[in-house]
């Protein structure tokens, strides 16, 4: 303790205190930060019904109306089709937790069977795109390069060159496409969830969609290559600039400090 108090005025004391304070704040934050998982589980308990309509009445009717006609809180579901239901529910976007600029992706709480029942119910309200079959979205054999060009024409403006996501107006955003199931990518293009425009088969054919999925599979999946090394988020010059400043110039300055520092003297006072 005596040693400690003697060093209280050491020039580096302030730095040490700051580091401790930062570490403590961070630690406390992780302790008290809200746990999303618990909430999701809680909602899960209330969903034990296994028929589409009943599922709908419990999970969806409060916003979309008892017959899917829509309310001020949620749009009409007549004619959105099974594909939209499959996308929204299976990616966890629906049911939404709270209204906001955009409903985020979260953990899905329905089984595929329940989703199918829900989808069947919504599809019965009005004709719409049906859930794609596997050979529609399976990227095997598709033209990756053609998909790349289509992606840059139709998708990159919101989702970035390789699907890392990007900003839209007033807090909305185009989400990252990393690890998104090909089926869901297909459904999103077909149905245009939330503010995303749709790309029906008349403007973006089935083959086009398949090519796009194949391109994403090649450049934005866990097996995608980044020949040059760390991808730095794939965000372009902003992350490259930050990396260059912090690790590039920062590292070189650390080296410079070593080069210019005085060598230890024989007798230390």
């Amino acid at each position, binding site marked *: 303790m005596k040693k400690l108090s003697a060093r209280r005025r050491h020039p580096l004391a302030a730095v040490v205190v700051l580091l401790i304070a930062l570490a403590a704040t961070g630690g406390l934050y992780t302790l008290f930060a809200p746990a999303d998982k618990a909430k999701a589980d809680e909602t899960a308990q209330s969903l034990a019904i296994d028929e589409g309509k009943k599922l709908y009445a419990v999970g969806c009717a409060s916003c979309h109306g008892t017959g899917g006609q829509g309310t001020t809180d949620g749009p009409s579901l007549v004619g959105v089709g099974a594909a939209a239901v499959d996308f929204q529910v299976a990616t966890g976007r629906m049911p939404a937790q709270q209204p906001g600029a955009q409903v985020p992706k979260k953990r899905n709480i329905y089984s595929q069977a329940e989703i199918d029942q829900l989808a069947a119910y919504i599809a019965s309200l009005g004709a719409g795109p049906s859930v794609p079959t596997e050979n529609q979205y399976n990227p095997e054999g598709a033209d990756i390069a053609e998909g790349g060009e289509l992606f840059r024409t139709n998708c990159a403006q919101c989702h970035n060159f390789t699907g890392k996501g990007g900003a839209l107006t007033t807090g909305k955003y185009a989400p990252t496409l990393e690890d998104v199931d090909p089926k869901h990518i297909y459904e999103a293009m077909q149905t245009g969830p939330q503010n995303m425009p*749709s790309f029906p088969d008349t403007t973006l054919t089935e083959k086009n969609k398949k090519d796009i999925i194949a391109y994403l599979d090649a450049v934005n999946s866990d097996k995608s290559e980044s020949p040059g090394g760390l991808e730095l988020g794939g965000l372009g010059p902003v992350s490259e600039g930050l990396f260059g400043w912090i690790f590039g110039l920062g590292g070189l300055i650390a080296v410079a400090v070593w080069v210019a520092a005085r060598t230890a003297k024989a007798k230390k006072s």
Partner: protein
Amino acid sequence: MSSQDTPEENLPAERAADDSEHGAVAVPGEKNPFADPGLPPHEHRIQDIDERAARRSERAVAFMFTLSMLATVAFIASFVAVPVDKSIYVFPLGHISALNFALGMTLGVALFCIGAGAVHWARTLMSDVELADDRHAIEAEPEVRAKVMDDFRQGAKESALGRRKLIRNTMFGALTLVPLSGVVLLRDLGPLPEDKLRHTLWRKGKLLVNMNTDEPLRPSDVAVGSLTFAKPEGLEEHDHDFQNEIAKAALMIVRLQPENIKDKRELEWSHEGIVAYSKICTHVGCPISLYEQQTHHVLCPCHQSTFDLSDGARVIFGPAGHALPQLRIGVNDEGYLEALGDFEEPVGPAFWERG
């Protein structure tokens, strides 16, 4: 010499006389308690007094130089042995090019070790006695200055440049004119603007061709909430002037519920709620197309200009100065969407002659 309007006394006094010259140790406390104590005596490093420590340093330096040699050998070996397209997984870098990683690391180590060895050598084994060098004023002595001025005057006088005005004036004239040749030569860098920025490939009867499928569009192809990009019929990607033409003609097509269209002219120029707007931002020309189908807003990814497609593509946020130009469209006899003319105003960024 000093500035004509600064009184000398406003400048801080030159360092007091008791501030010692470098090296001379003043006696502290006698006159000025803050006097410069002079260079502190040199202290020895471990390497200066302990030969074993010096040997250790020597070995460390030699080790680094040796490591550098080994790294160079490894660089050449990797260059020969590693295939250019081989990919390896390196945590936490991901799936990266094996050759790039191997070459970069070996080259890096080879270079870094030379540097580290040299610096360690300088820091531990070369003399670390601090030396002082005198500075000398940069300004020349007054005699030198006077001599230069005299020489210059003499030279100027001998040239008679001031006296023979005719020579002087014609020379200046010639020197001023001669660079003009260079400027004139630049003329053929490009054509004059004329009205090139005012016209696009669109004209009456041109079909709207889907960018993705290369097929002409029918109204039924365009659903509410969808987004379609189109080019004028006849423009192909292989065409010589494709880039220049698409840079002006690129089209963005969306379908709104006619009752949602607030702008009267927009409704008139649309077909069953299908509206066609230039895809080129009116700010600095990015292909704008971040269409939000629920708000009908289009955002530019470059500088965030936001346009409201349901209200004549008016600017609602950001640095763009005017609305996106709309293309007037209709349907031909065969039921395909067609243009009813060119854009009525220049597309893309504003310019001085735009008016």
